[in-house]
């Protein structure tokens, strides 16, 4: 499960060739909003050519244009035969997921970014090709004609709802990007809030955001130490339930500790 998903404009060679130096767990090569209409063809060709030559360890997704855009089928077919981790589908809804699933065999990460999609989130995320969901708060608040604030009160319910949906279906919930590039304190608060509500990772629109996101969405040192103590005690007692530091520990907590240690190992923290 990745912590950070960095958007990289699909028509910018300098950023594409540096995709693996930003330390993002995953990158999303963007054919949609960051590419001017007159350069959609150039971006498609550049992303295809890059992917054909790409041999890296970073997960690579491609954000295609939406189903109704007129670019959809060309975007899908441009990279469908190449090794990508999946498509990121903007303006997702159940019909759009079906259309993309018919057109490809790759995993799909839908962006939930309009009110109806929020209401349809369970139907969208439960599709077998869908491997998680991304919240697109900028478009969502634009659709609702409400202010997008730094404390995120206007998306609090949506974050909670999508977290529940994704966790119920055991799939990642990727939080919306923080769009104030130089406000890292704001990013820290925003990401911490999203994580506390159940987000498993966060999208980023600037490389400077990646390290902080990785830090906040990865297991903390204190959490790792606690998990190690829980697992050690569980091994030592051999019991289904036991006390540690005055607290009752049972199997769900032991299992959570196992998952946390596995995540720590993945991110080279142990």
């Amino acid at each position, binding site marked *: 499960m990745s912590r950070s998903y960095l958007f990289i404009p699909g028509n*910018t*060679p*300098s950023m594409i*060739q540096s995709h693996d130096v930003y330390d993002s767990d995953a990158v999303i090569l963007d054919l949609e909003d960051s590419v001017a209409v007159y350069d959609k*063809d*150039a971006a498609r*060709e*550049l992303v*295809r*050519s*890059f992917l*054909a*030559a790409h041999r890296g360890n970073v997960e690579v997704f491609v954000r295609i244009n939406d189903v109704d855009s007129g670019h959809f089928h060309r975007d899908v077919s441009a990279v469908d035969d190449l090794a990508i981790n999946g498509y990121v589908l903007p303006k997702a809804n159940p019909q759009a997921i079906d259309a993309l699933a018919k057109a490809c065999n790759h995993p799909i990460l839908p962006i939930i970014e309009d009110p109806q999609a929020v209401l349809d989130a369970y139907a969208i995320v439960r599709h077998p090709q869908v491997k998680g969901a991304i919240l697109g708060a900028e478009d969502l608040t634009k659709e609702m004609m409400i202010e997008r604030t730094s404390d995120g009160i206007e998306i609090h319910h949506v974050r909670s709802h999508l977290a529940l949906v994704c966790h119920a279906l055991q799939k990642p919930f990727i939080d919306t990007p923080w769009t104030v590039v130089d406000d890292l304190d704001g990013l820290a608060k925003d990401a911490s809030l999203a994580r506390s509500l159940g987000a498993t990772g966060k999208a980023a629109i600037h490389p400077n955001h990646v390290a902080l996101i990785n830090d906040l969405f990865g297991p903390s040192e204190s959490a790792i130490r606690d998990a190690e103590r829980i697992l050690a005690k569980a091994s030592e007692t051999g019991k289904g339930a036991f006390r540690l530091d005055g607290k009752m520990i049972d199997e769900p907590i032991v299992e959570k500790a196992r998952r946390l240690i596995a995540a720590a190992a993945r991110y080279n923290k142990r």
Partner: protein
Amino acid sequence: MNVTAGTYESSDCLIRLSPSTTRKVIVESIVFDQFGDAIQRVLNDTLDQYGVSAVQVECFDKGALDYTVRARLITALKRGGYIE
């Protein structure tokens, strides 16, 4: 008709195609001494792959990697109707 693809930005290249009865490939690069031949080879290999023999290709390179040069040429060829 002249067509272009790409930019003059760092790590990119700009490809300009002009009508010609033969194949002409011209490369200007900030790293011509080290990579001029390699860029020529990518351009010619791509033209060969698509069977394009009658076109003038000018490549103004700002340090593009091979896949970028190839992508910009293919885009220009499609824009100019040389290939589909």
